[in-house]
């Protein structure tokens, strides 16, 4: 995020760069405070993914056979973690739409603060929140039998990839929240598009069990690339290079398209 600071006159470029950072931190702090104050947000970002873990581990898991000798819980957890990261971005759109509607964004834009800070602080706070959620889900996974089987560094790599994946979707979410601008519509639209892209992937079941026409989609969409890479990082002994390259390319494309769109939507919002 470039420092599109608001100050044109008196302060020098060094001061502006410093303010861009401190303003971003102030907004981040504010967003995290809000998150901790609202029980619904905690439920949404912590309890819901835990329910998914338990549901798939104990209810659906018995009926799902995965190829090779991989236990289902090991197959499942990277998928759940990616889905958790993706769904966590829902809050980004809602929060921005709310701030827009209440006039908070108008107020901040009329102040001599760094203009980049509102969006940057939102993305930083939501990424931090997402990381907390991911770590909790990993912990719950450990409690129900999941293990990283490929060493510590790839395990960290998996968490990092999941977080970057979530951040990419945060950019899409920020754009939709600012572009739609109406909280109710955002609420209605927010998760609709995430359900198909996460469930029609390798997240919960082997793609080979799907009908052919669905396989064609599921095998060639970004979420599958990311989850297959995460799975290879977590478990080892799985092909990784091609999926990693495709993941990086897809995530880069999302950033290149949606970050500028979100910035433009923020500038025009109000």
């Amino acid at each position, binding site marked *: 995020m470039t420092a599109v600071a608001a100050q044109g006159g008196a302060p020098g470029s060094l001061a502006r760069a410093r303010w861009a950072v401190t303003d971003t931190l102030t907004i981040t702090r*504010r967003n995290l405070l*809000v998150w901790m104050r609202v029980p619904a947000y905690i439920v949404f970002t912590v309890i819901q993914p835990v329910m998914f873990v338990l549901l798939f581990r104990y209810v659906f898991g018995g009926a799902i056979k995965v190829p090779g000798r991989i236990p289902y819980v090991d197959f499942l957890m990277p998928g759940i973690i990616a889905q958790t990261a993706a769904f966590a971005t829902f809050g980004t759109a809602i929060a921005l739409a709310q701030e827009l509607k209440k006039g908070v964004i*108008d107020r901040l834009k*009329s102040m001599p603060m760094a203009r980049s800070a509102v969006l940057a602080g939102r993305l930083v706070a939501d990424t931090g929140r997402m990381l907390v959620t991911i770590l909790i889900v990993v912990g719950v996974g450990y409690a129900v039998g999941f293990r990283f089987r490929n060493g510590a560094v790839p395990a960290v790599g998996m968490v990092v990839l999941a977080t970057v994946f979530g951040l990419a979707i945060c950019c899409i979410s920020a754009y939709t929240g600012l572009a739609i601008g109406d909280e109710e519509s955002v609420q209605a639209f927010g998760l609709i598009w995430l359900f198909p892209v996460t469930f029609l992937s390798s997240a919960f079941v082997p793609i080979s069990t799907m009908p052919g026409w669905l396989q064609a989609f599921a095998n060639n969409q970004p979420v599958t690339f990311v989850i297959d890479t995460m799975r290879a990082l977590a478990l080892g002994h799985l092909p990784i290079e091609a999926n990693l390259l495709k993941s990086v390319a897809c995530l880069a494309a999302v950033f290149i398209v949606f970050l500028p769109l979100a910035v433009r939507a923020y500038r025009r919002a*109000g």
Partner: protein
Amino acid sequence: MSPSSSGPAGAGPAILVQGLTKSFGDVHALRGIDLSVPRGTVLGVLGPNGAGKTTAVRILTTLLRPDGGRAEVEGHDVVREPAAVRRSIGLSGQSAAIQEELTGRENLEIIGRLYHLSWPTARSRAADLLKQFDLVDAADRPAKNFSGGMQRRLDLAASLVGQPQVLFLDEPTTGLDPRSRLGMWDIIRSLVAAGTTTLLTTQYLDEADELADEIVVIDRGLVIASGTAEELKGRVGGDVVEFTVPDRRRVADAVAAIAQVGNGEPHVDTETGVVSLGVGGGGSDALIQAVRGLDGAGVETRGLALRRPSLDDVFLALTGHAAEDEEPQSRRRGGRRKARNDTAKGES
């Protein structure tokens, strides 16, 4: 109250607007308005919903780019020097732009930090404002538990954190109950007394009358009149005889009965049955004639009285329609919620 700007601000007016235009597609929100607000004074911008008031405020606070014309705040051009403008202004909009999950104190401290105050300064500034706005008892409760009036006070406090030279209040009392409204007026008066230049938009005529040194009336994107409240009242041409006809079928008879009395056509509000008539300097003679006429015609009336003209009458005289009329063709883009008219006008 506030330090003088480091920019080219000097002797000129605090706000200067010339030929400002802005359209949203086919909707011409501003069709060339001129304003000039001397330092330390209050300008009331009066007009119905959709007249262009909020569009003007959004341009002056750098939230919107004008299509044409010129706008300066404290000598800084809003398009070319938005950052300098932002350093001199405070904005309090139509809704409470506060973070409801955070406490009143946290809201103000965060705003202070975003004005690049140090933590200790931001804290003491927040504490001062909470005291000034009578929010000390509620300071550490989440703002979502505040009453509507308290939320608006907090919002106004937030707009003052940066110690602005120029304050923009966009319909500061819209949606408030009458008591909160009076409290808000007291607060705005004290700010003004401290010397803050203020531009206040309102659709309440009594509000402009109470708070503003100078009033401009805008309608459909144009300034249609300006002056002090007294000067505008003078436009109506003296006193007004007003009464209500409870039986709506007799309104026409009532109008006919007083046709010879006034110095113009009576105005009839068909919804409420209120008939008003400008009578110039005729005063009590006109009142007596009206009573005789109505009595002769056998029309029953209520609340027959002679009164000084209100700004309602001014608006009517200037535009031919009442101030509360909605102007759907010139609504702002975005369909933002517009607070309901409250009860303070038109009742009782």
